[in-house]
């Protein structure tokens, strides 16, 4: 299993958490937009 471990470089240490945070934000935004249409809220 040790060969499957990795040590992230300095730039990966901030890039990966940033990417995950952006994806999480995108997920919540999308869910909010879909959810609001359930209550009849439109953006047009």
């Amino acid at each position, binding site marked *: *299993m040790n*060969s*499957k*471990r*990795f*040590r*992230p*470089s*300095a*730039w*990966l240490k901030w890039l*990966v*958490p940033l*990417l*995950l945070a952006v*994806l*999480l934000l*995108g*997920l919540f*935004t*999308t*869910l909010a*937009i*879909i*959810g609001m*249409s*359930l209550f009849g809220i*439109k*953006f*047009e």
Partner: protein
Amino acid sequence: MHYIPILSTLVTFAFAVAVFRRYLLRRGPHLLMWTIGLFLYGIGTLSEVILGLAFSSLVLKFWYLCGAVLTAAWLGQGTLHLLVRRRGVAWTLTGILAGISILAGALVLTAPLTSASTAYQVSQPISSQYQNILSRSGLIIALTIVLNIYGTLALVGGAIYSAYIFWRKRVLFHRMIGNILIAAGALAPAMGGSFIKMGLPDWMYMTELVGAVLMYIGFQQATTVPSVEPAPVSSH
């Protein structure tokens, strides 16, 4: 713009075949659910190709049913099978989803069309016209919304969660990258649906293509075991 759904269809069906071939080798139920989801995705984009040539009420209904109602839920169901360890839970939810899918299919295929279908324009994206043509009941709209929330949360949330676990444990770099790409790819068409609601229907074709390509690359990345350690290693 009609060449984009053609590309999306080719990529999606190639992706579906790749996942199904892996299912034949590994027999994981998540792979079967993803195959179903990708097949539905492909029917949705293929319907866009056909509707770009001529109008057909049946194709319009298949486009709405497969592309807008069911795809996200079945893809998300695959991720649920992968992450939920209690098999009974995942299979129970699959049974419920199958029942709801049949109900949604019956409702959409029997939904009436309005007189606006005579004014259909092949040069315009179907996403900008279907709301005036397809008469959707409140139940159809509610099912569409609930299934999309369920599928997006399971697929995107599951991929983000998996990527985070690999990152925190510092293991399986290729799977972490694969899951990040899958999450980004799955978000793209989900946001495409949101663009329709925001009055930007043209963006949907591109988000479908980007989504299919990113998820395919992510799947390949996550399932291909590298022969050499791929992760960049810090110099200090």
